[in-house]
């Protein structure tokens, strides 16, 4: 068993090099397959995640809890300022709540008067964030709802307030949400008071860029940014955030969703918008005798 190390390596090194070469070629083959047939390999990846992450749930849960506790403990140091701040905010929010209640009642009355039918499509599935992407160059999270909950690729994910990201990759019990800050994220948006259309482009920083704004002069910091629904992937009018002007004079969007604390995510079920395909038909009296009979009938009433 005990061989001379140097003698052994003299003999086995060429064999080993060939072996290593073969393995490297095989692995690069996997990489090329991913490059060529991306959806298939990504489905495979989701299947692996589906296996791997729930298996380690027992380890993830306490680790997550501990990390959050440490984070919370750090915030104790500035608890006084926080308290003052919260009081102020609460005061403002009370006023807003009052206004909102009144408006809601008024709105309900007006809707009732007008017999408006509200769009019933936007229902949602809520999922818990299970895991991070684990890689510094990817901004995504894994949530614990998947195909068996009816999740479909491309649906929007929000926290209570704002848009968080888009479903990309669905497993049986888990699915991946690509955050707006990821470099692969591109969302069509509208900047609110001026109605300018733009593209929200993630660049791995906390505030994504707003690109392709037609007349940037009309856009001011603080303007609301909502999804535009262009392309039919996202429902329109989901709150994204506010415009901010970066130090390099580029327009960025400060996100409304609280990215520091993504615990629960709402995945919006969105049906594709219905299209009106055929041109309008000829409007007039229907052909045939039956419709003509109706006319005296109505006159009898």
């Amino acid at each position, binding site marked *: 068993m005990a061989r001379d190390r140097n003698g052994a390596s003299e003999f086995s090194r060429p064999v080993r090099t060939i072996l290593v070469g073969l393995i490297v070629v095989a692995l690069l083959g996997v990489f090329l397959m991913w490059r060529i047939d991306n959806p298939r390999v990504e489905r495979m990846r989701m299947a692996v995640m589906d296996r791997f992450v729930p298996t380690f749930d027992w380890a993830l849960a306490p680790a997550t809890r501990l990390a959050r506790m440490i984070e919370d403990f750090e915030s104790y140091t500035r608890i006084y300022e926080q308290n003052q701040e919260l009081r102020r905010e609460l005061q403002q929010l009370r006023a807003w709540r009052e206004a909102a209640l009144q408006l809601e009642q008024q709105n309900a009355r007006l809707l009732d008067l007008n017999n408006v039918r509200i769009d019933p499509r936007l229902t949602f599935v809520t999922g818990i964030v299970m895991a991070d992407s684990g890689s510094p160059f*990817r901004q995504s999270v894994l949530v614990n709802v998947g195909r068996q909950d009816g999740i479909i690729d491309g649906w929007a994910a929000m926290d209570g307030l704002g848009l968080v990201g888009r479903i990309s990759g669905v497993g049986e019990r888990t699915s991946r949400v690509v955050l707006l800050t990821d470099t692969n994220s591109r969302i069509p948006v509208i900047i609110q008071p001026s109605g300018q259309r733009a593209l929200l482009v993630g660049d791995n920083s906390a505030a994504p860029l707003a690109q392709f704004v037609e007349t940037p002069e009309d856009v001011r910091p603080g303007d609301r940014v909502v999804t535009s629904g262009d392309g039919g992937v996202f429902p329109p009018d989901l709150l994204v955030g506010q415009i901010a002007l970066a130090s390099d004079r580029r327009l960025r969007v400060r996100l409304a969703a609280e990215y520091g604390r993504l615990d629960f995510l709402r995945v919006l079920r969105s049906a594709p918008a219905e299209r009106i395909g055929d041109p309008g038909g000829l409007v007039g009296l229907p052909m045939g005798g039956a419709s003509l009979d109706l006319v005296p009938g109505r006159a009898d009433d």
Partner: protein
Amino acid sequence: MTDTAATRIWVWRAAYTGLALGVMVLSLVPVGPGHLRLPGPDLLFCLTAAITLRRPELAPLPLVVALFLLADFVLDRPPGLWTAVVVGMVHVLRAQVIRVRELPFLSEWSIFALVLAGGVLVERVILFATFTPAQPLPPVLLFAAITALVYPPVVLFTNLGLRLRKVALGEANMLGNRT
């Protein structure tokens, strides 16, 4: 005698696997998922390199391939690419084992850093050659630098925590069969 030595090796390999899985799970912990973190370090590679330079037989190639391929899939990287690069780097490191045995730690560290830099470069060249959308250069350089900086603590851990030392000259023949 041989039996216990063989089981011991397998215990070590199991420990390496366990540590690697632990590192993977820890990097998945959602601590403020939206927060931007420093890129890196690749603890898994540091650990693999440290073990390879000390007792290569404890990190056999099939195990390394399996672990890194799993990591590629789980950590949302292009599957296979980083694994292929790591296999190459581990191969280069293995060729240095005998030399590193006689060198001080500082030289070992610089060898590690050089090999890592080469690996990152190769990865980048392949990404460009296949027109894969790649990260901008600064974070990638930062990733390499942080991984290189983390190497000494990992070695300290393998030395003190796992009690893995470089093979001394006298026991070179035993090679992990007897400690």
